[in-house]
């Protein structure tokens, strides 16, 4: 009824390698994209600049982490550090007088180099050991940032980002920032959608499932792991730079600390490893729900006229949010993306599948 299909069947290789195998999915994606483009005109600016914009940038970042963790199966606990490399190198490059377009790419490349440099050392070990090595990278980066005023920008380690300008156009309005974030997020999403149907994507999945089995099949697992780290670090670097350029307006070490790394990982895991739509959901849950629940609890207590201590009031949302994560992972361990997938698969042939039973 919704999807007008009796199931997904392919009669040619071309139809099998389509980006969207179900027309309804494609239509939905196009519809969402249109809403995204129209958002500045239909949403109040509060939602635009303090919810949607960070959501889009963090989604782009989470997709990058999903590439290395979800697709290539390498646990990464130092993702925020890579974002920091991108952010700081891009800002410093702009401050030297280089235009933002080039600076963003330089930021991405710098992150890519540092990220894969660590990957070289890290990839001699696997699993939890790799996770710990990437965590070490995070700490090294934290230390470098707090101990080198030339990088971190002096007083209380905050480095101001120059005004974002793309294609000769200064960007200062909420809508402008939003479109930059949307553009980057869409670009990363398209890249990830395509990754699924290329040899590279399949090689990464092979490496994830069993790296020596992949080696037997002729997939050089070391090469693909490095490639995954480099690509994901590039995405991280540009996302980090854009986060500072369009949202924080100045970079500080706390914005890229170890708990941020863990948050991004949580976004990916709650959203679903290897799921693109899941990353969108995961980021929304981890990033936005605490603030929203907080607002709800505050409004509720005001409406009910309860005299709740401010400290208690602050802890209730945390408990609700924690419970929410546990409940979601108990209902569907594969994350929100899989939850969405289940509903979609059920509706795919509904209600005609009922006839068969």
């Amino acid at each position, binding site marked *: 009824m919704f999807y007008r299909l009796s199931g997904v069947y392919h009669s040619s290789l071309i139809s099998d390698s389509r980006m969207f195998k179900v027309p309804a999915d494609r239509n939905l994606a196009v519809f969402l994209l249109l809403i995204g483009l129209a958002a500045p*005109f*239909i*949403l*109040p*600016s*509060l939602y635009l*600049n*303090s*919810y949607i914009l*960070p959501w889009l940038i963090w989604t782009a970042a989470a997709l990058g982490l999903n590439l290395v963790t979800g697709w290539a199966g390498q646990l990464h606990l130092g993702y925020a550090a890579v974002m920091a490399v991108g952010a700081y190198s891009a800002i410093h490059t702009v401050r030297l007088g280089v235009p933002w377009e080039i600076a963003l790419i330089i930021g991405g490349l710098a992150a890519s180099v540092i990220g894969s440099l660590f990957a070289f050392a890290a990839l001699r070990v696997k699993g939890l050991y790799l996770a710990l090595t990437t965590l070490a990278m995070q700490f090294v980066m934290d230390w470098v940032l*707090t*101990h080198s005023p030339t990088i*971190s*920008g*002096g*007083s*209380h*380690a*905050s480095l*101001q*980002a*120059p*005004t974002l300008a793309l294609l000769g156009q200064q960007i200062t309005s909420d809508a402008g920032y939003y479109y930059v974030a949307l553009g980057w997020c869409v670009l990363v999403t398209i890249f990830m959608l395509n990754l699924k149907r290329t040899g590279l994507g399949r090689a990464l999945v092979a490496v994830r499932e069993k790296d020596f089995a992949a080696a037997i099949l002729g997939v050089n697992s070391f090469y693909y792991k490095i490639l995954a780290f480099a690509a994901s670090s590039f995405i991280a670097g540009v996302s980090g730079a854009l986060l500072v350029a369009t*949202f*924080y*307006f*100045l970079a*500080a*070490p*706390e*914005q890229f600390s170890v708990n941020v790394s863990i948050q991004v990982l949580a976004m990916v895991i709650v959203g679903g490893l290897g799921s693109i739509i899941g990353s969108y959901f995961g980021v929304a849950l981890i*990033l936005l729900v*605490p*603030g929203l629940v*907080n*607002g709800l609890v*505050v409004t509720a207590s005001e409406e009910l006229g309860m005299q709740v*201590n*401010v*400290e208690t*009031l*602050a*802890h209730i*949302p*945390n408990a609700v949010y924690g419970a929410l994560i546990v409940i979601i992972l108990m209902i569907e361990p594969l994350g929100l993306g899989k939850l969405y997938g289940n509903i979609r698969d059920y509706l795919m042939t509904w209600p005609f599948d009922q006839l068969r039973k």
Partner: protein
Amino acid sequence: MKTKRKVWTIAIAAALATSGAMASAQENEPIKFGLCFDLSKSYAFITPQVAQAAQDLAMYTNENGGIEGHPVEIIVRDHGNEPQRGVECYEQLKREGVFIYNFLSTPVTNAALPRAMKDGNILMQSFVGRGDAVDGEVFGWVFPVGPTYWQQAANDVAFIKGQMGGDLSDAKIGFIYLDYPFGQEPIEILKTLAEKEGFQLELYPVPLPGSDQSGAWSKIRRDKPDYVISWLLAGGHAVASKEMRRNGFPIDRYLSVNWMNEVDINNIGAEEAKGVLRGTNVAGGQDVPIVKTMLDTYYANGKGSGPESLVRDVYYNLGLAVYTTGFEAARLAIQENGWPLTPESMKSGYEAIENFDANGLMAPVTVTPQDHGGGGKTRIEQWDGANWVPLTDWSADYIDVVWEVIKESSAKFTVE
């Protein structure tokens, strides 16, 4: 297709309606103070006291006629020390008509500062954020009333100079600090002063979160500094006191940054802590008239904004200090420029504060368009086993040296 268009029109109309309602300025609104605090994570050791102080003070002000007849409203929100949520809180309260903010967290205030500067909103930033923000010529909208860490460190050195007979040329001063921006901030000024006064400066970095200090203190035992200036926080003081006992360093030579409260003293042990020194710009204890008023009017009848135990904490006094100053600024602003209060008039209200000490609550502050810190006066207090006893008068020293550092740092900031 037609229905779709209809839905769109309705959605657009609804959105326009809500945003229009938000934008309409209301007359006779209360004066709103936005407190976006970290009530659940790293800063939870201080924020409940400060929020409670602000609420008590607002209650007291409103019951006594408000600020020039206008009521005050305190809006408290939690941001969990996450910059993203702090920005969200800022943007949300901005639309509720708030233009006076306090974030009380260095990472979050840093994230909100560019927005406040761009929008022209008042940012109360006492004790957190970048130190060079006291430079009112650069940071026009930021009001970090109180001493910067630079000024505090300079005042500490001046105190030690006084204790050592006015000559520091043979002195050795140790500096133990948490090895991240908070603790590193005073180093530059201490180095400058070491050169100027000729004392020997020894640095003892301690890794976060300050629970492992054994290396630093065994080095202190070897170096034998005359005084140790400490930029540690919360639990760090208790660890330091144990190490001092183990290494035979007298606790009355331990001079702490303003972050040491009754909880820390209890953790060290009231008797064990006897003699410990603290630099502060706020008088501790409950003998201060305004704290007494709060205890008598509200807490004696169980009507306070929170538990009484939080009142018996120097950070409650600190909260009162921050908000009496803010209220005074609002009063001066309305007196001079009339109602309604705007960010511009609030700014000039702040800059008109002269020799204000909230009836003995804190060091007198004089805010000027150049100096948003109010002079940076502090005094040194000593714990006598039950109370904090002031050893010096409110004063600020080496002002020119400190301002050189401030100017050098603030020159790098431009409003984008």
